[in-house]
């Protein structure tokens, strides 16, 4: 389980996260929802120790992040994290070099699924294909938790569909996923839990299934209630 407890984060005098708390379980897809600038990416970075927090605590399976944690949890940011001059296959061998949990077979499978050429240079890829390669760099790691920052942002509809398909496959099953989005419609049917965030605070955290069954509401309905009052 990933536990985010009372996390505060300031940029200068601006409080970006104001005592934010939520949990994400293994085997579930948790979606952080909120408009741009509410602190979704900051939370992801804070979980990965890519930005310091002012107070609060973040635990991964009960432990603070350390070097071993990066074999357990990975982050797929909205920008590709490999050098542009690298070929896709170079990027894969870089991953294989450093991560014990890199699964080359799975990387190969995904490459075929996305119909990508391993000899293609990253710099020459379209935005959609770059997002797919970025996705593979995360998915081919045998980690327990995946953090994805706006995986659907700014890419074409067919790439979106392909990426969404991955969510329903065995590649995601049993893992804990935290995903951020400001457009819920793409993934509403995929997520298990929703965390509505505004202004650095959690407004509501709920199980999508439960709300759907008990109250007959979709995520968008709940969002309407919460954000519009």
């Amino acid at each position, binding site marked *: 389980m990933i536990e985010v407890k009372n996390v505060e984060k300031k940029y200068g005098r601006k409080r970006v996260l104001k005592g934010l708390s939520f949990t994400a379980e293994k085997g579930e897809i948790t979606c952080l929802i909120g408009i741009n600038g509410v602190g979704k990416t900051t939370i992801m*970075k804070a979980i*990965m*120790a*890519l*930005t*310091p927090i002012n107070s609060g605590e973040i635990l991964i399976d009960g432990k603070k992040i350390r*070097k*071993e*944690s*990066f*074999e357990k949890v*990975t*982050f797929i*940011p909205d*920008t*590709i*994290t*490999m*050098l*542009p001059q690298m070929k896709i296959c170079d990027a894969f061998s*870089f991953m294989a*070099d*450093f*991560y*014990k949990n890199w699964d080359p077979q799975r990387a190969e499978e995904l490459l075929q699924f996305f119909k990508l050429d391993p000899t293609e240079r*990253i710099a020459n890829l379209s935005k959609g294909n770059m997002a797919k390669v970025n996705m593979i760099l995360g998915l081919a790691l045998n980690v327990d938790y995946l953090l994805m920052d706006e995986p659907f942002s700014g890419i074409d509809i067919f790439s979106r569909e392909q990426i969404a398909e991955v969510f329903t496959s065995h590649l995601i099953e049993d893992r804990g996923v935290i995903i951020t989005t400001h457009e819920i419609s793409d993934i509403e049917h995929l997520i298990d839990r929703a965390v509505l965030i505004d202004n650095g605070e959690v407004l509501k955290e709920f199980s999508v299934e439960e709300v759907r069954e008990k109250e007959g509401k979709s995520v968008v309905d709940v969002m309407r209630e919460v954000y519009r009052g």
Partner: protein
Amino acid sequence: MKNYLKLLNFEVNRFFKLYLTLIGLIIVSQFIGAIVVSKGYMNVTDQVINKNQLSVSQYIKEYGLFSFEQFVGSEWFVLPILFSIAMLMIYVFFIWYRDWFGKNTFIYRLLMLPTERITIYFAKLTTIMLLVLGLVTLQILLIPIEIKIVTSIIPTDFRSDFSSSHFDSLEMLVWLYPNAFIEFILIYGVGLILVAVLFTAILIERSYGLKGIFFAIVYGMLSFGVFIAPILLNVFSNDYFYALEIFLMLLVMSIIVLGSAIWIANHLLKYKIRV
């Protein structure tokens, strides 16, 4: 350790094309220089001898022998070295900033590697030192060849006897050929400390943003102050200390400056760094 070596290999490869260009530039410029300077000298010599109807010994008496320093002091020799130093100095900064800027923020990947983050710092530090020492080695290898070129153009009568072993007298080359192992350690040890302090200053800036620039400058000045404190102490106490005592104090200060640079960098990379 394994990850350190892999990162080191990776970092060296990233600079390798530019490095080969620098190597090529040094070789071409110095070889052409050796020919141009020697031929130029012989042309002038021939002209003077012919014009004034001098014998070789009269010419030597009046104008002196050709010394290798004339080549070593020429732009052909010096400029590519200065250019390489400038490039490496720029690369000290670029080696970090390139990972933050641009479309592909590689720093995400580096900081998410399942290894101590200070390994990245050590790998980059070693890369810079290897690049510097590589160029120094290249220069050491080039000099005997350049001597051959010069001696093949200028006859023995016109030049002083020079061979690689006589370079102690050439001030320019003291940096390349330290007289003793201890001198080598001193020169390149100070270089290592300088790069380490600059790296830590960069990480301070990367961790604290605009405020960080101010902190980084203060940190840099403090480190410099601590480093030269024994020398200042000796100056203000009218040379009260023996040279060995000053040396030992400098050594202690160096360890303190280097140790604190690494400690601060480790702390920043673990807890303060921002992507």
